[in-house]
């Protein structure tokens, strides 16, 4: 499993506002749907990309056929496809890099492709492989602790109150 520091992951999650989710599924029991739902709940904008569902909606978000069609800005491309598909997706992403303001290529659990990673890094992008942003957000916020997960970090500060929009919003 590739190693990333907590600072690196936290920095990416904090500076990302919009995620293009390549391989998003309309099936509400698929892992990509779980991740999308969670991240939407946390205030991220998600642009699902799935040619088979183009024009339809997942969780109220319009689905795009490819990264070419996704509106700017997008800071992070999240790959929910096989490791073999990763280099092709990274090439598409790099073609849109300036238009979108892309900063990070993120590959999901068990998606590992060193060629794709090298391509992205050479273009100046952050690369994360074999991770899920839902799990990493859950680690950093402490929410994943409720499932007894070893977050591998120690907090000495009170975390911000969670909840859609914070404590005072209704």
């Amino acid at each position, binding site marked *: 499993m590739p190693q990333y520091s907590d600072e690196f992951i936290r920095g990416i999650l904090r500076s990302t506002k919009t995620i293009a989710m390549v391989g998003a599924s309309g099936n*509400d*029991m698929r*892992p990509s*749907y*779980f991740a999308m*739902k*969670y991240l939407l*709940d946390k205030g991220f904008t998600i642009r699902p990309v799935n040619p088979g569902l183009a024009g339809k909606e997942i969780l109220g978000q319009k689905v795009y056929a490819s990264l070419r069609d996704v509106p700017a800005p997008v800071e992070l491309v999240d790959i929910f496809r096989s490791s073999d598909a990763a280099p092709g997706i990274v090439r598409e992403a790099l073609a849109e890099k300036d238009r979108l303001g892309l900063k990070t290529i993120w590959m999901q*659990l*068990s998606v590992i492709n060193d060629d794709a990673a090298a391509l992205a890094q050479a273009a100046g992008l952050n690369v994360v492989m074999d991770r899920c942003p839902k799990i990493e957000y*859950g680690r950093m916020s*402490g*929410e*994943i*602790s*409720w*499932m*007894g*997960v*070893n*977050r*591998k*970090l*120690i*907090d*000495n*500060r*009170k*975390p*911000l*109150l*969670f*909840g*859609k929009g914070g404590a005072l919003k209704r």
Partner: protein
Amino acid sequence: MSEYGFNTLSVHAGAQPDPATGARATPIYQTTSYVFEDADHAAALFNLQVFGNIYSRITNPTNAVLEERIAALEGGRAGLAVASGHAAQFIVMHTLMQPGDEIIAARQLYGGSINQFSQGFAKFDWHVKWADTRDPESFRAALSPKTKAIFIESIANPGGIVTDIEGVAGVAKRAGVPLIVDNTFATPYLIRPLEWGADIVVHSATKFLGGHGNSIAGLIVDGGKFDWGKDGKYPTLSEPCPSYHGIRLWETFGDMAFAISCRVLGLRDLGPALAPMNAFLVLTGIETLPLRMQRHCDNALAVARWLKAHPKVAWVSYAGLEDDPSHGLQRTYSPKGAGAVFTFGVKGGYEAGVALVNGVKLFSHLANVGDTRSLIIHPASTTHRQLDDEQKKTAGAGPDVVRLSVGIENVEDIIADLDQALAAAA
């Protein structure tokens, strides 16, 4: 977190200052339920799509701190707190076993585990094959196509035999089944079974982890390394789950799938939830685990040496003694110490054993181990009473056997009490 030491993790792992109030100590969330933000949020929680609390049978924020702490101390991926060590074992088996399946378990086990496996589990058509904790080959010999797990104790009840975890782990790995280790007597302070190839660790946190004899509790730690999808042996984890709309728990949760399945299936359906008050007390105990365990071990070694030289003592079984058969394994697996629980044989057999436990004035005669207080029991007449004579012998609980759990009192006082009781007994 690999940069933090064990003592630091014992105090801090899993804990955050409370988000609502800033409280530093872990609050006791004495609540059964938790409000939903809206109906959509409620549905997402029930579907496992977002993290959150619904009902304290399934998750509780106080228990969660304990779960993360034990996972961190054992070097595991995730933990689950349940009502007792027995409940932990029950839930682990419930997740792994189908009717007709088998586990291979060491004969040298806590009597309660022997009963649970041979009597309680038989009702579910889960079968146990017995092997010798001193001989990894005996586990291999007991394998069958129906074997789904192997179960051992790292330091075994009652005589403190140290198991060659790596040896048994090799057998388990080649057979494609997980190795479950009951690490109650050692605690992760002495031994971390996951580092030696175990896949799952269970604890009676009632004992040394809680450490103060005040709370019954159990813990499961998922090592996060086992491939639950291989060969279709564990359909609960690899096949569509009917009560969660067909998600495959192994596919959805990856290296946390076993711990999460124990929670959202076993704990959900069987119900042995840990009270948050108990979780709090066990957590508080764990903060001093390193200090207590070292004192337990140092005291126990002194007591064992004193007993070995005593004319009324026939033999002592303690891995810390240089001539004990387990001593070599203790030096390898548990260099800080051999634990605090061991047995000795009092000359005069059953009657002398009974007289001894009746004669102590500092030791408490009761059924427990791993308390700050020194404890004594005669297993043949109590903890192993429900086994037959043959089972008692193979479990190390013959008629002359006395078991001690050495506490953290002044060692001179501990020895003085045994001295006067032995003088009166035999």
